């Protein structure tokens, strides 16, 4: 099994990559949501009668903020459990 060292290499790199993807995605999303929520609260304090409309817009923007982070989460978890880099080494 001279492949073992290579398999271990690929798995280690994949684990680090998954961590980076999840971590950076979480960082970006957290900052984005913080700014979004802050602006929403400011707007709500200035014009309370606009709150329902602003709330809907806030959820829409929240969905867009979430998007790339979630794509990253999906891809990272996919790599955790069905690593395509590992398949050639496993002889499939």
């Amino acid at each position, binding site marked *: 099994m001279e492949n073992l060292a290579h398999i271990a290499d690929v798995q280690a790199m994949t684990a680090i990559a998954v961590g980076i993807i999840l971590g950076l995605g979480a960082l970006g999303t957290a900052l984005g949501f913080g700014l979004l929520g802050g602006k929403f609260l400011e707007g709500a304090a200035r014009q309370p009668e606009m709150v329902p409309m602003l709330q809907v817009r806030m959820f829409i923007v929240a969905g867009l903020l979430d*998007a790339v982070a979630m794509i990253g989460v*999906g891809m990272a978890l996919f790599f955790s459990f069905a690593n395509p880099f590992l398949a050639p080494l496993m002889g499939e």
Partner: protein
Amino acid sequence: MIVRAESPTEYILHHMTHLKVGDGFWALHLDSLFFSWLTGLTFLLLFKYVAERATSGVPGTLQNLVEMVVEFVDRQVQDSFHGRDPMIAPLALTIFCWVFLMNLMDLVPVDLLPFIATLEGIPYLRVVVSADLNGTFGLSIPVFFLIFFYAIRYKGFWGFLRDLLTHPFGPWFIPFNLLLRIVEELARPVSLALRLFGNLYAGELIFILIALLPFWGQFFLGLPWAVFHILVITLQAFIFMVLTIVYLSLASATEEH
């Protein structure tokens, strides 16, 4: 209580495997196909049933619920679609309700339906269609084609080409404009599909991980996650619908700036 003879990784992989027929590009995920049909037919038959028995007197609970959903979607379409088209609101309603029902399957306990399937001799069952790339792309690729057809219908073929080649920078930058516009147009269905997929795949995976914890984990972790997930499934269905309406509105915008 079911005593598992498999390791945690095997448990996770078992729950992440589709009921597949064929392989490679031509693989059919029978479980996704079945549950997408099931949820779609549920939506259609339920709304048809309520519509046929709709009364203008005091409505029953079911008619109330359906009216709430229809009015909600109608208001969203009025807010976001600047034009007149009879197909947008039914399309938005279908997308919202169907995606919501498909996402709702994620709240069914992780082992329940696969266990019942095992009694019938079915080895793998993944019930959340929107956690399958085929499911989400199956929704977003038709939306992509609809955007294309709406643009041609509202702007004419030459209007569409002019729009493609001369926005956002003037007619002297045609290759650059073309590249940017192609990327922008392709990014829409891809982001629609992957956003929904990422959210639901992660949600399903966390439910599976929580299922591996001892019994106390189910209440202290499973319950908050399930409650949060109720928000996520509704929000993702709403986002998909709103973005579809907005993209179609942009595609059929005929006024010049």
